């Protein structure tokens, strides 16, 4: 049992990290009052922008600098692409769910359309991804070292750092307080002199950048290829956001839980100890758990109160 856990742990973490950053992006957006179900499309957008950048740059420079530039390009692309959602939801008072659906569909179609013009097949393969590394010193700590500090990707630490900074920004800075206020009671925030529109724009762009980073992290860690979808992980991130009750530490727990379950399902074919658990149970587990969480928290949900409601300056 122990050896199985040690074996699959690095995979579980690899699988969890993109979910963390995407759910965190969703957290910014929803905490500011804009529901973002376009996370999945934004991930695809990031995966595309990252793949294209790395594909073009890898022959000209060292592989790892191409990858890091690719990740930055993905974030920029996601932030720009999410402006479509921001504009529709913030300026035009559009239905946020419909706009998010449109974002998803535009991303799925447009990226493959563009990719076909580049490669013909619509898939973009990158020559090499990030290398796994053991962290010096820490990886030799018994138990913990084996689980958390062996065979890690650099992106894992970047994402965890972003999570830590995000917690600080959201709860310890004026910007974070304002952002949360806009999601709870935008009119009160407005009365206090906060520019709700500007805060929401910032939040949606952050969510776009983070979701796109998530898509690109998948690309440079375990997939190595842009294929036009991310297997619905954007929706799993959305489930994590709800199950984590819109809190940074909550989503860390939820994503790890879901990531671990999915990894077990993915590897259960090859690991005899796990073959006894039917894959379908492990795969539907995150979604069923989210439904149950929705029921349990239905009376005391921590959901931002104004999420999904357009803010109209004149309607106080």
């Amino acid at each position, binding site marked *: 049992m122990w050896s199985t856990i040690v074996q699959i742990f690095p995979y579980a973490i690899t699988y969890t990290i993109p979910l963390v950053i995407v759910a965190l992006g969703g957290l910014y957006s929803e905490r500011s009052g804009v529901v973002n*179900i376009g996370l999945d499309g934004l991930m695809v957008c990031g995966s595309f922008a990252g793949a294209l950048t790395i594909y073009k740059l890898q022959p000209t420079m060292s592989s790892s600098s191409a990858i890091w530039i690719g990740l930055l390009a993905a974030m920029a692309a996601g932030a720009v692409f999410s402006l*479509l959602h921001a*504009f*529709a939801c913030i300026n*035009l*008072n*559009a*239905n946020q*769910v*419909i*706009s998010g*659906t*449109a*974002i*998803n*569909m*535009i991303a*799925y*179609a*447009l990226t*493959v*359309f*563009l990719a*076909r*013009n580049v490669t013909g097949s*619509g898939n973009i393969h990158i020559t090499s991804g990030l290398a796994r590394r053991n962290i010096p010193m820490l990886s030799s700590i018994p138990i913990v070292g084996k689980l958390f500090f062996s065979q890690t990707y650099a992106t894992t630490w970047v994402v965890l750092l972003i999570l830590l900074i995000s917690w600080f920004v959201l709860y310890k800075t004026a910007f974070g307080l304002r952002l949360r206020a806009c999601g709870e009671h935008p009119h009160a925030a407005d009365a206090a002199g906060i520019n709700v529109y500007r805060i929401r724009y910032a939040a949606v762009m952050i969510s776009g950048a983070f979701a796109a980073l998530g898509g690109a992290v998948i690309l440079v860690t375990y997939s190595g290829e842009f294929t036009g979808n991310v297997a*619905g992980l954007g*929706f*799993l991130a*959305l*489930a994590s956001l*709800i199950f984590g009750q819109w809190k940074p530490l909550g989503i860390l727990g939820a994503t790890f839980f879901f990531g671990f379950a999915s990894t077990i399902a993915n590897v259960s074919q090859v690991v005899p100890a796990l073959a006894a658990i*039917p*894959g*379908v149970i492990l*795969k*539907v587990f995150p*979604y*069923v758990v*989210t*439904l149950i969480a*929705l*029921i349990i928290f*239905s009376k005391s949900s921590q959901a931002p109160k104004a999420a999904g409601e357009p803010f109209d300056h004149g309607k106080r």
Partner: protein
Amino acid sequence: MKLKMIKGINKNTIVSLLSIILGLLAGAVLMLITGSNPIDGYTYLFRGGFMNIERFGNTLATATPLIFTGLSVAFAFKTGLFNIGAAGQMLFGGFCATAVGLSLTWPKPLLLMAMVLSAILGGALWALIPGLLKARFNVHEVVSTIMMNWISYWVVYYAVPAYLKGSFLETESRRLPHSASLRVDWLTNLFNGSYINLGIFLAIAAALIIAFILNRTVLGYELKAVGFNRHAAEYAGINVNKSIILSMMIAGALAGLGGAALYTGNAFNIQIGVLPSQGFDGIAVSLLASNSPIGVLGAAIFFGLLYSGRGFMNAMTKIPPEIADTIIATIIYFAATNVLIEGFVDRIRRKKRGV
């Protein structure tokens, strides 16, 4: 509600038409950017959908699942619900129909009825859970139907290889025999070998029935009343919880029928690892039709045309087929931001009146 008729022309129609034009323009810009001629592109796209009777049949067949999912989303919208789970309901309904079609060896008419019924039940069952959660616990149906989509995806992902797989491929079910297909010889021959099937008649019937229920029955009135204002409806003595559950189940049943049309009519088997895109396109269809069941027919056929013509366009030009999906997605975006277009229309009207 901005449903007023102004000077005989329905504002919704103008918004829809402008959305289509803007979507097509966006497509043209994309074609230009990637170095193709948009006029050629659209000529081949529309010829691909209408050139001859066979292609016209294919356009109608492609439109069939879209009619069902469009109706599903439109019906839910009319009753105040947002059914974003049409894809999952459709997948599960189609799975049920395929399972029945592969396991029973009844005569064709009887078997088809059983398959259609199982698709209805499967879709309705998949929507029952979000309906219950909404009615009983006030869980927002957008989130719960998204979760149900992925539950459906994974259930089918594991159930098809376990119970319905053929001898070679793990990723799709066995091929349905002719006796379990919605395709019938006379229709295929009438359309010169097109894959049009009985689904189109079911779809038209469904549109008429839904229009009748919504506009002419007490049930439709009650469901719409709950959609407009839950509390007012409750005060008026309508059983709100029952209405929500029933609305969701009807929407699910429609999507389930779409699954039957797609997997047992247009196709011969069900594939795993894909949530049918028609489920999400249904949102576009419904928006473009401003939730009118009859409008859904027109909007779905328009999208069917884009989808069925894109293959021909791709064969004749260098334009990738995903242009059709991009155009549809852009149309949804413009339909969602209808405030912009409505404001524009209003401004023009005001200028005409000289105010």
